[in-house]
């Protein structure tokens, strides 16, 4: 075919040529092909085609991102509105130009983005009623059915013009007559709304459209009334826009007319001064959206540049605030600071709108309007009302403030983190000092978790870098607190250990002088560079800061084996050895990524759960630490850490890990399942169930939450519920052998043996698993076919020779099948295994109970009594343990105790025990019969 490449080398040459500049390609081809005419011809032609094709097929023709838009250009919505094109986008919605077929007019449609499905709020209903020249007319609210659920959208007046924000981005500021015209219109519109009882809540220059009237004059229109706030704003999204938010909003109070007025003040300020009240410099590169809207990288210090006009008297405001008055907001420099010769009414009006305290602000928009329209000028420029400015001479001018000055005013940080300078072995000073400085810079740039309304859990962090601390001679935590009013300190110590570097970091709460979070990691020479990134993540973790990207990196070469490893991890709980091989390979191919060690940790935990040898758990911990040394705040690493902590019985720490994952990825089901498991271990049954339910809600088609909840119910004796959940699991994962065999257990407890056997047979058909075989054995036992039971269970044991429960089952069945001699070695092995578990896990009542049970046929009666007593104490009410207790005491001739235990068992459990050959006599006892009657059994 013409243009195709037949030669092997041809393609390599072609691809190399494409890397070069177009002019260089021809020459390259000539050299690369040497003298091979045919090759040359082929490659030249192929290159021509490549150049003609451009990026053809390098992107999909229809992409997901487009489909995620609520509406598409060309679409007909509700059989009435023809979408023409997208004209704008906000945080929660997208605005389109459209044509209303019914009314034969051009309109604008605002539709909620997926995830923000519902727009409605009481404010909006109100906005519908307000009609004013300067308020965007909202026609109707509609709901459309889409494949992603119901979608609210509004139809509005179509405003042909640009936003005030865009205009200001282009022109800088407005001249006096223009500004006055726009300002008066805004006031008029806002006043009308306020008088009708409507609050805007999200007033900003992006919500003001400047349209042209026929006579060339401008009409300013306020849009988006009542669309912000009110209903559930997703976590991480602002309810309003930072640069326009009044101080009381930051403190968690509700929006009000006063906060609208504050925002109005900011808009006016922008119009006449050409910059925001707390902004350093407008960024020209930013798109024509609100300069005050983006995330918090807005401002640093407030020194006006030398060439800008500065009123001498005003220079005193460029200072640190009073450390002990952190809650007071300082008013901004008046707009005239930036605009020489500005009409004094602006200063007056604007500063009163921007008063930090809502009660000191102008109370009514109409006052603003009046003031603006006044002809006379009052005396003297505006004077800041009452707040003292403190000059911290020690700090000003010596060290450039690193802190985000303006943000500290708008939102006083509730954390001041002192990054203590490096102190340690001198030969590590370069690494240590450099890393700490870098950490300070990076942390300052992290966006913090902002919740609306402001909750106690969210933090903003102001960082005091090591250099500043050194200057202030405040190198210890106590001094940092006294001198710099730090609330927390980050202390990092480095220690060489052989050819490795040990780093220990802690975040210390300076109130209590206690560490709130610690990290101990080790680096080799080669990967010491990862330290500052890891420390940054560590701080983000300690303060719940939302990272801009917590994506883990993995080289493409390592991705293959890594994914394969994940595959093995997910498939079942027994493919861990295969997973380990893959993760090792991935680690080899990418030695700096946190992902392969995190994967290893998970695989090793699986191995530990099966093999029960401590060494695997230790290895898992080591790998977790490695992963943490690269990125302690990564979802994968946190999940691994959570699992390892669970395996180590550190359930509270595990919960912390899972909670953090939830913050980073609210839809992460694995984290929820982990949390539920931890809750169960902490005996918080209600919370465990609720968490499982939440996982089901989040992802209704995923089988695992039903699986886990089913097992949970089974463990807690709630068999009917267990069956229900497991059936749901089967519906979703019919190919999973575990689903069917899991169902068998509760069915058997409920006495539904026929169904149980069916389920088990099905599972064995799909794949023979240990659990399946064991369950079939148990069914045979119930049917009194002890020999067969033993045979099945022996086969189960080949998969898991250390499982003491199965060992006991085999032993019991052999005994009842009249082969007691054969049974003994099994009892012995069972006892060993149970004993091992008891040593590893001293709090496990179950292990002790089985240990005790195994002791009886081996004539170790005293031990049996002791252990079973302890087991019952450890987990009172646990039916499985009580069952053992009952059997043991009966075998030891202590029937009274056995009867006592019987009383505490559930009816189903009690009934199941009637099958135990050892208890035949027991159940003939009239006292026992009485208890059974009381239980409703027979």
């Amino acid at each position: 075919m013409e243009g195709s490449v037949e030669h092997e080398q041809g393609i390599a040459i072609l691809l190399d040529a494409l890397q070069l500049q177009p002019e260089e390609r021809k020459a390259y081809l000539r050299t690369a092909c040497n003298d091979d005419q045919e090759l040359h011809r082929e490659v030249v032609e192929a290159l021509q085609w490549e150049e003609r094709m451009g990026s053809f097929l390098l992107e999909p023709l229809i992409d997901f991102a487009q489909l995620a838009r609520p509406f598409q250009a060309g679409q007909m919505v509700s059989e009435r509105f023809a979408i023409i094109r997208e004209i704008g986008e906000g945080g929660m919605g997208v605005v389109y130009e459209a044509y209303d077929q019914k009314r034969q007019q051009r309109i604008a449609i605002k539709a909620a983005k997926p995830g923000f499905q519902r727009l409605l709020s009481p404010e909006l209903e109100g906005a519908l009623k307000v009609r004013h020249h300067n308020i965007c007319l909202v026609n109707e609210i509609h709901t459309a059915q889409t494949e992603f659920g119901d979608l609210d959208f509004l139809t509005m007046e179509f405003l042909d013009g640009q936003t005030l924000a865009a205009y200001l981005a282009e022109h800088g500021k407005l001249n006096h007559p223009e500004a006055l015209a726009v300002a008066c219109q805004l006031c008029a519109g806002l006043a009308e709304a306020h008088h009708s009882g409507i609050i805007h809540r999200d007033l900003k220059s992006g919500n003001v459209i400047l349209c042209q009237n026929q006579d060339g004059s401008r009409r300013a229109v306020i849009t988006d009334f009542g669309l912000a706030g009110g209903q559930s704003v997703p976590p991480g999204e602002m309810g309003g826009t930072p640069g326009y938010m009044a101080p009381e909003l930051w403190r968690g109070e509700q929006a009000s007319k006063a906060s609208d007025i504050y925002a109005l003040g900011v808009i006016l300020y922008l119009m006449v001064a050409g910059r925001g009240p707390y902004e350093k410099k407008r960024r020209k590169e930013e798109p024509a959206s609100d300069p005050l809207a983006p995330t918090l990288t807005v401002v640093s210090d407030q020194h006006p540049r030398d060439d800008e006009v500065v009123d001498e008297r005003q220079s005193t405001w460029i200072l640190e605030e009073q450390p002990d008055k952190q809650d007071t907001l300082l008013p901004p420099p008046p707009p005239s600071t930036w605009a020489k010769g500005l009409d004094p009414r602006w200063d007056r009006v604007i500063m009163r709108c921007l008063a930090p305290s809502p009660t000191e602000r102008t109370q009514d928009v109409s006052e603003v309007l009046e003031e603006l329209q006044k002809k006379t000028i009052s005396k003297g420029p505006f004077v800041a009302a009452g707040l003292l400015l403190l000059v911290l001479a020690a700090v000003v001018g010596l060290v450039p403030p690193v802190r985000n000055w303006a943000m500290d005013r708008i939102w006083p940080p509730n954390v001041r983190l002192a990054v203590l300078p490096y102190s340690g072995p001198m030969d590590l000073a370069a690494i240590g000092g450099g890393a700490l400085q870098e950490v300070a810079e990076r942390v300052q740039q992290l966006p913090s978790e902002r919740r609306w309304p402001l909750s106690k859990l969210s933090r903003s962090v102001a960082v005091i870098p090591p250099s500043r601390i050194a200057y202030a001679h405040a190198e210890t935590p106590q001094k940092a607190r006294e001198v710099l009013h730090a609330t927390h300190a980050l202390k990092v110590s480095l220690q060489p250990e052989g050819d490795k570097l040990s780093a220990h970091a802690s975040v210390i709460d300076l109130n209590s002088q206690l560490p709130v979070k610690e990290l101990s990691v080790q680096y080799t020479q080669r990967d010491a560079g990862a330290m500052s990134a890891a420390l940054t993540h560590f701080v983000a973790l300690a303060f719940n800061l939302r990272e801009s990207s917590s994506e883990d990196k993995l080289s493409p070469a390592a991705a293959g084996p890594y994914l394969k490893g994940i595959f093995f991890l997910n498939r079942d709980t027994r493919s861990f050895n295969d997973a380990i091989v893959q993760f090792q390979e991935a680690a080899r191919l990418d030695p700096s990524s946190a992902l392969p060690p995190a994967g290893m940790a998970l695989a090793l935990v699986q191995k530990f759960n099966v093999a029960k040898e401590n060494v695997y758990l230790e290895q898992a911990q080591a790998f977790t630490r490695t992963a943490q040394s690269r990125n302690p705040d990564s979802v994968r690493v946190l999940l691994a850490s959570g699992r390892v902590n669970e395996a180590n019985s550190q359930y509270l720490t595990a919960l912390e890990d899972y909670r953090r994952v939830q913050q980073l990825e609210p839809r992460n089901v694995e984290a929820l399942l982990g949390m539920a498991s931890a809750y169960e271990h902490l005996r918080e049954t209600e919370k465990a169930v609720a968490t499982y339910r939440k996982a089901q809600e989040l992802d209704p088609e995923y089988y695992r939450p039903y699986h886990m909840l089913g097992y949970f119910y089974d463990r807690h004796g709630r068999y009917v519920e267990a069956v229900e959940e497991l059936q749901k699991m089967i519906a979703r994962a019919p190919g999973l052998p575990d689903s069917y065999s899991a169902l068998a257990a509760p069915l058997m407890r409920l006495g539904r043996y026929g169904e149980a056997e069916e389920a088990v047979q099905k599972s064995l058909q799909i794949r023979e698993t240990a659990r399946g075989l064991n369950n079939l054995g148990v069914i045979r036992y119930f049917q009194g076919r002890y020999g067969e039971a033993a045979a099945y269970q022996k086969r189960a044991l080949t998969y898991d020779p250390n499982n003491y429960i199965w060992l006991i089952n085999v032993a019991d069945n052999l005994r009842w099948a009249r082969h007691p001699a054969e049974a003994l070695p099994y009892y012995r092995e069972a006892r060993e295994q149970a004993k091992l578990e008891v040593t590893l896990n001293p709090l496990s009542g179950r292990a002790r109970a089985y240990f005790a049970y195994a002791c009886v046929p081996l004539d170790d009666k005293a031990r049996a009594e002791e252990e079973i007593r302890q087991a019952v104490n450890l987990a009172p009410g646990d039916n499985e343990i009580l069952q053992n207790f009952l059997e043991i005491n009966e075998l030891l001739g202590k029937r009274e105790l056995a009867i006592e235990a019987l009383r505490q068992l559930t009816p189903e459990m009690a009934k199941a025990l009637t099958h135990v050959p050892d208890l035949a006599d027991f159940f003939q006892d009239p006292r026992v019969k009485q208890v059974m009657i009381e239980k409703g059994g027979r």
Partner: protein
Amino acid sequence: MAGEPGEVTVLLHRWREGDKEAESQLFQILMPELHKIAGYCFRSERPGNTIQPTALVNEAFFRLAAAKNIDWQDRGHFLAVAARVMRRLLIDQARSRPTVKFTPMEDLPERIRDKHTPLELAITLDILLDELEAESRQKRTIVDLKNIVGLTDLEVAKVLNISLRTVQREWHDARVWLFKRMSAGGWKAASNTSRE
């Protein structure tokens, strides 16, 4: 003693041998799964989160691998089918929003670009891919894996178990083949038949 291979594995093997019936059965199984995962991505609470098709198919694979007992070896074929399912999914969804006016696209030469919507182009491509498959199944699969799933050349090579150079050659050749047909008259016939 291994159990019987799962339903999906059987279907994948049959599809590998060229069984068309197996393909439609696989579609029936995979379509809702991918649709659901895609929906899940759309409702992501991380604003600005771009949905990566690669992540989507990997996610689908892990879930189904466990639930339906699919082996790692069959991942390559799984991805190839999944890519087709996704292509169909995208077309169906785009189709459910009928076009009234076009939106221009960068990739193709002027005379096509100004005449057809992305949807029409995608449908045309779909038809042409079936034709390409008749000539070379491997080429078609490579196009699917690269264009829809977004795998790199190296990943495709691994997944299909062929050499990197082969992938690169065939990808180039396939693109040229398709490009010729799309920029000639080939698409006209396609667009006529696809008009509903």
